[in-house]
């Protein structure tokens, strides 16, 4: 069955520390993966997609088909990165979301 797993509900780091938000998926086929972010009092929005291989706000994510993972990384966390992060998997006409990880960055 198609599934997205985010094992951490909460990740707390200090400003300047590296961050890695984990995402694993289960999908029969060629996956399309995404990271969505929800900042406090803002709407959920797309952060990045694996197919673009882009870096947004210093975040990158590499699709590892061997490990079925799509972890989100940033070398130096900033306080403004504090938010809820959702990993999502494209499945036909819809997205399957993980349960989300709340990132807290302390000053």
């Amino acid at each position: 069955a198609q599934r997205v797993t985010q094992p951490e509900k909460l990740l707390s780091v200090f400003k300047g520390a590296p961050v890695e938000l984990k995402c694993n998926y289960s999908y029969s086929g060629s996956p399309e993966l995404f990271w969505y972010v929800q900042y406090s009092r803002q709407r959920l929005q797309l952060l990045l997609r694996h197919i673009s291989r882009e870096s947004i706000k210093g975040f990158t994510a590499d699709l590892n088909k061997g490990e079925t993972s799509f972890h989100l990384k940033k070398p130096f966390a900033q306080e403004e990165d504090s938010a809820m992060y959702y990993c999502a998997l494209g499945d036909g006409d819809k997205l399957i979301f993980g349960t989300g990880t709340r990132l807290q960055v302390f000053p």
Partner: protein
Amino acid sequence: NAGVTQTPKFRILKIGQSMTLQCTQDMNHNYMYWYRQDPGMGLKLIYYSVGAGITDKGEVPNGYNVSRSTTEDFPLRLELAAPSQTSVYFCASSSPSYEQYFGPGTRLTVT
């Protein structure tokens, strides 16, 4: 360009009451979605639509109904509200891509 709008922002219902959550988008997107967000559970898809007149069930459709008579509107109907439907409801829209645009959400409490 307002994007995706949802009304109301908040609502308290008594058990057994009914209500409609409104969702409108002005981006001419064919695809629209309804999700519920429960603490620790992420986003669960309730219903979605790939165009006017076409709707399909998501992961958690029980207790809800939808209709899609226009491209712009995708209302979600709750019949006989139950405490288990207490949640935050999000509407989203997209073109045929996976970049979904979300509304601000409706916080619903059923007591």
